[in-house]
């Protein structure tokens, strides 16, 4: 497998984490345009810990996930009082605030006369943990793949459990869920923290794959894409967002002959798809049909 194919597959894996994070909120009935902020929190936190303080990547990833969970929990505390589009707008505003904070972040550490670390709009270079530890691109793809498989496995277990039914119940009718004794606000806060941790995990892995991050990597484009992954792929199963990422990156890569116009082609395809399948390709009805057919 050449570097190009490895890079594309690794990107599909990395962006699947943020897609799953948006999907988790969607099935609980909340549309977030701000998951890129927690992806960024994970990327910066993980990069700082490995590049500036010599932490091992697994430990840095855990710390970044905890920070991502805390960050989204704190954002969710006031914003979850809002509903629908108001919540979506609040998450977008919070994400833009986070991006501006990344632009103001100067966490430079002098190491033998050389300054390293986040330098505002200049970005954060030299996140080289995987190069320093001799991890080949194929091995890194394997690490990303195993972590993604674990996360998807966890989703599948949760979706078949009482918690999964509770989440979908809240997503479809929060008043009814509250009427049967579910603490909707508390469950949603837990979902938000889990989504933040998931996005942060994707961010840590992204930063170490690219060795360089900057605030613009975490702008609205990433937020829109992460939501689109879940909506295109479908809201019926955790495989939906993965299918969305695969289609997004796959279509963009396979329409290179359109050059700069391929975004217009891609946007058109998405619009047509969402007209005919508003809950995505693998929506609840399709998942039910597949289960009945193969069970």
């Amino acid at each position: 497998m050449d570097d190009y194919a490895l890079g594309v597959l690794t990107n599909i894996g990395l962006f699947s984490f943020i897609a799953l994070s948006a999907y988790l909120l969607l099935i609980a009935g909340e549309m977030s345009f701000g998951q890129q902020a927690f992806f960024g929190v994970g990327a910066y936190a993980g990069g700082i810990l490995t590049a500036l303080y010599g932490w091992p990547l697994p430990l840095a990833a855990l710390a970044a996930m905890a920070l991502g969970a805390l960050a989204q929990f704190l954002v969710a505390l006031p914003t979850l009082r809002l509903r629908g589009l108001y919540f979506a707008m609040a998450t977008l505003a919070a994400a833009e605030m986070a991006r501006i904070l990344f632009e103001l972040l100067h966490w430079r550490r002098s190491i033998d006369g050389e300054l390293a670390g986040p330098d505002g709009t200049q970005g954060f270079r030299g996140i080289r943990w995987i190069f320093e530890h001799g991890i080949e691109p194929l091995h890194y793809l394997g690490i990303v793949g195993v972590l993604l498989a674990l996360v998807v496995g966890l989703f599948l277990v949760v979706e078949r459990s009482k918690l999964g039914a509770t989440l979908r119940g809240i997503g479809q009718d929060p008043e009814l869920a509250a009427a049967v004794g579910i603490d909707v606000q508390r469950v949603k806060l837990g979902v938000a923290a889990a989504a933040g941790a998931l996005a942060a995990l994707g961010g840590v892995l992204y930063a170490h794959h690219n060795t360089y991050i900057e605030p613009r990597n975490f702008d609205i484009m990433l937020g829109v894409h992460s939501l689109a992954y879940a909506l295109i792929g479908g809201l019926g199963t955790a495989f939906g967002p993965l299918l969305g990422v695969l289609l997004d990156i796959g279509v963009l890569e396979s329409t290179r002959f359109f050059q700069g116009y391929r975004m217009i082609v891609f946007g058109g395809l998405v619009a047509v798809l969402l007209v005919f399948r508003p809950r995505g390709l693998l929506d609840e009805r399709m998942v039910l049909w597949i289960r009945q057919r193969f069970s």
Partner: protein
Amino acid sequence: MDKAALLLSLVLAQTPQADLRCVPTGEDFVYDCTVTLTRSGRPLEGARITVGADMPSMPMAHSTRPAKATPGTKPGEYRARLDLEMLGEWAIKLRLDGPVRDLLVLHYEFDSKGASPSKR
């Protein structure tokens, strides 16, 4: 200095440095680029390089298929053709293999005359 800082300082001292010069080929958004690689002030020879490019605010949507660079005429020089999708700022990604494994990211502004380092 603690052990981790010492290790990091050794790594930083050996980090390759790269410089990029690009000239337009006459075809829209296609540039012939020369990469000059040094390490500890000396030309870095024998590296295998692939050159790719991303738009910083759209790293997934607007990227180029990485091209393999060939050795240039001078020590530490490598040449590659970049086929971009539009003018503007691009993050040039140099993936190094061979005597050193690394990924260097350089920000350049591309216009009709060539490329110059981004000013921020």
